[in-house]
C-alpha cells in the first residue's frame, strides 16, 4: 500500500494492531469464560476475514470489483466437503490412475482447495478481464451464478441440500474439534494471509497492481501489461478465498450451495466497504463489525434487520472510508 505521510501510518497501524489483538483477545477471553459459542463466532469472523482478504487483494488494491467471489469460497468449501465425504464414507473419489478415497487432513485439503480456487480464478479471470467497470462486476456475477446453479442441480454431492461433514477434519498435532484450537489455527492462517497481502502490496507487483486500478493506460505506457498483473492477482485472490471456504466448511461441518450464492459475494463486498476499501485490515474490521451487530441485534428484536440497515447506512454516510478510515483517518486507497 502507498506509504502514508507522517503520523498517519502509525495511527493506521495502531488501529490494525487493536483489531488483531481484539480478535485474539475476544476469542481467548470467551474461551476462558467457557463461552464456547463466542469462540466459534470469533472463528467465523476470522474465516470471513480471510475470504475478504482474498477479495481485498483484487478489489482494494487492483480495483477489480468481483461480485462472484462466493464462487471461490464455495469451491474451497466443496473441495473440503467432497474430500471429507469420500474419506468418511470410504468411497472412492476416483479410481484412475490410482484409487483415491479422499482425505480428512487439513493441509492436504487446504492445498487442494487453493489449487481449485486458483484454477477457477484463472479461467474466470482470463475471460472476465476483457471487460472493465460494471461489466466486470456483472460477468463475475454471471460465472458465480453458473457455478451456483450447477451445484444446486448436481445431485451427487447433495445438490441444494448440501453435504454434511460429520467430523471436523484434522490437523497434525492439533485437536481441531476443540473450538479454541481451531480458532488458533484459523487466526494463524488469517495473519499469515494478511502478512502475505501486505508484502504483495509493497512489492513491485503491488505497485503495478495499484497502478492498474488507477490508470491502465499509463501502466501500458510504462511497459507493464495490466492484464497479466490483474490476472495474477485474481488467481492469488481466488486461492486465498478458497482456503477460507475450506475452513468455513470445517467450521460449520457442512457445505451447501448457499456458500456459492451471490448473497455471499455481496456480503464479502460489504465487509470490505464497511471496513474501509483498500485497507489491509478492512476485511477483519468489516467482518467483525458485521457479525457482532448481527449477533447483538438478533437478540433484541425480530426486526433486527431494519435497525441493522439503519446502522450500516449511518456508517456509509457518516464514516467515510469505512471503519478504519474513520478511526485511522488519512487517505483512502480506493
Amino acid at each position, binding site marked *: 500500500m502507498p506509504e502514508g505521510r507522517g503520523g498517519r501510518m502509525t495511527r493506521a497501524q495502531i488501529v490494525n494492531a487493536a483489531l488483531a489483538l481484539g480478535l485474539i483477545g475476544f476469542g481467548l477471553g470467551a474461551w476462558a469464560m467457557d*463461552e*464456547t*459459542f*463466542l469462540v*466459534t*463466532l470469533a472463528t*467465523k469472523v476470522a474465516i470471513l476475514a480471510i475470504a475478504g482478504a482474498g477479495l481485498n487483494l483484487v478489489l482494494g488494491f487492483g480495483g477489480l470489483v468481483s461480485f462472484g467471489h462466493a464462487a471461490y469460497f464455495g469451491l474451497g468449501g466443496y473441495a473440503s466437503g467432497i474430500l471429507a465425504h469420500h474419506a468418511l464414507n470410504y468411497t472412492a473419489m476416483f479410481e484412475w490412475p490410482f484409487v483415491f478415497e479422499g482425505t480428512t487432513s487439513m493441509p492436504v485439503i487446504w492445498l487442494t482447495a487453493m489449487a481449485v480456487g486458483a484454477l477457477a480464478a484463472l479461467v474466470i479471470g482470463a475471460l472476465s478481464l476483457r471487460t472493465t467497470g460494471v461489466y466486470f462486476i456483472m460477468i463475475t456475477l454471471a460465472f458465480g451464478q453458473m457455478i451456483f446453479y450447477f451445484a*444446486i*442441480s448436481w*445431485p451427487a454431492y*447433495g*445438490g*441444494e*441440500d*448440501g453435504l*454434511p461433514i*460429520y467430523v471436523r477434519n484434522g490437523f497434525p498435532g492439533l485437536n481441531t474439534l476443540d*473450538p479454541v484450537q481451531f480458532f488458533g489455527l484459523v487466526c494463524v492462517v488469517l495473519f499469515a494471509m494478511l502478512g502475505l497481502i501486505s508484502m504483495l502490496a509493497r512489492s513491485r507487483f503491488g505497485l503495478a497492481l495499484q497502478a492498474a486500478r488507477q490508470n491502465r493506460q499509463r501502466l501500458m505506457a510504462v511497459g507493464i501489461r495490466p492484464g497479466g498483473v490483474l490476472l495474477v492477482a485474481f488467481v492469488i485472490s481466488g486461492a486465498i478465498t478458497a482456503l477460507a471456504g475450506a475452513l*468455513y466448511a470445517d467450521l*460449520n*461441518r*457442512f457445505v*451447501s450451495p*448457499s*456458500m456459492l450464492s451471490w448473497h455471499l459475494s455481496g456480503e464479502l463486498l460489504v465487509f470490505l466497504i464497511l471496513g474501509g476499501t483498500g485497507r489491509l485490515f478492512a476485511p477483519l474490521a468489516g467482518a467483525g463489525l458485521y457479525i457482532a451487530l448481527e449477533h447483538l441485534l*438478533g437478540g433484541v428484536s*425480530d426486526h433486527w*434487520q431494519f435497525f441493522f440497515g439503519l446502522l450500516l447506512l449511518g456508517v456509509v454516510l457518516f464514516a467515510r472510508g469505512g471503519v478504519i478510515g474513520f478511526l485511522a483517518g488519512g487517505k483512502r486507497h480506493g
Partner: protein
Amino acid sequence: EPVKVGMITTLSGGGASLGIDTRDGFMLAVEKAGNPDLEVHIEDDQRKPEVAVQLSDEMIQSEDVDVLTGIVWSNLAMAVVPGAVRQGKFYLSTNAAPSQLAGKGCHENYFSVSYQNDNLHEAAGQYATDEGFGRMFIMAPNYPAGQDSLSGFKRFYEGEVANEVYTQLGQTDYAAEIAQIRDSGADALFFFLPGGMGISFMKQWAEAGIDMPVVGPAFSFSQDILPAIGEAAVGVKNTAQWSKDIDNEANAAFVAAFEEKYDRLPSLYAAQGYDTARLLLSAMEKADVSDADAFREALRAAEFDSVRGDFAFGPNQHPVQDIYVREVISEEGQLTNKIVATAMEDRGDAYAEECSM
C-alpha cells in the same frame, strides 16, 4: 430435572410464515401444559444453513440444551441434525424429514414427528391412481426435495406420466409451463411448489382457465398461504397427514385454542409443532432427560394424544400414520381444507429398511 429445548426455525425472510406457525403451535402446547420444567429457547435461522449450524452450536455449547427442534427446511436439517445427534442431543423434527436421515443416516436420537418428506407425494400418487387419472403431468422445482417429490409420486402412481417438468427453484413466472400443460392433454396435474412458488403458480393457473384437476401435497395449500392464492385454490385436492377437521378431541381442542390465542386458523406446520411439543411433554412425564436411554424409550412409545388421531413411530423413528386427501373449500368467507378421502393408511416410508438401528 428441567428439559432445555432449543428451537431453530425460520422467522424472517421468505418462508417465515412456516417457522412462525411451527413456533406458535409448539408454544401453544407448552403454555397449555404449564410444565415449569420445560424451557424453550427460540432462534431465527433466516433460512440459511450456516446460520442454523451456528445456532445449534450456540445452543449445544453455550446453553447446553437437551433437545433441538423446529427446523423447517431439509437442507438446514441436513446441516444441523447429524452433528447434533452425534453430540448426544435429541432432535425432534417438526417438519423437514429428508430421506437421508430416514434411511442410511438414521440415528437413535433423531425422531421425525411430521412425516418422511416423500409421504405426502406418495399419497398424491396413490390418490391419482385411485381416482383413475390415466395420464398425469407432474412438476416440481429442480432441487433434491423436488426430485424426491416426483419419485415419491411415481412410486405409487400407476398411470402414464404425460410429462415431467422441473422448474427453477424460486421461479415465479409459470407461463411457459402452463402452456406446456395445456398442450399436453393430460388428465390431471400434480405439482409440488412450496411457498411463494405455489402461490404464483396457482394464480396464473386460474388465469389460464384450463379445466384440469389439480393434485398436490399440502405444502402449497396449507392454511398459511391459502388466502394469498385466493379463490383459485378452491376445489384443489391436496394430501396431508393432518387437517383441521380430523375428528378427535385433541384436534378440536388444538384448533380452538390456536384460533383463540392467535386469531387465525392453524396450518399443517402449527399442528406439527403442537404434536412435537406434546410428544416431548409425554416423554418428560415418563423419564428424566439425563437418562438418555430411558428418555429415548419414552419418546419412542409416543404416548400422547396426537391431533392426527393414531400416532406411532416406525423402526426408523418416523411416523406410521394415515394420510388424507383434502379439498380446498371456502368456509364462512375463509379458505380452508376439508378431508375428502384417505389416500393411505398406516403408511410408514420407503427408507425404513435401509436404516440399521
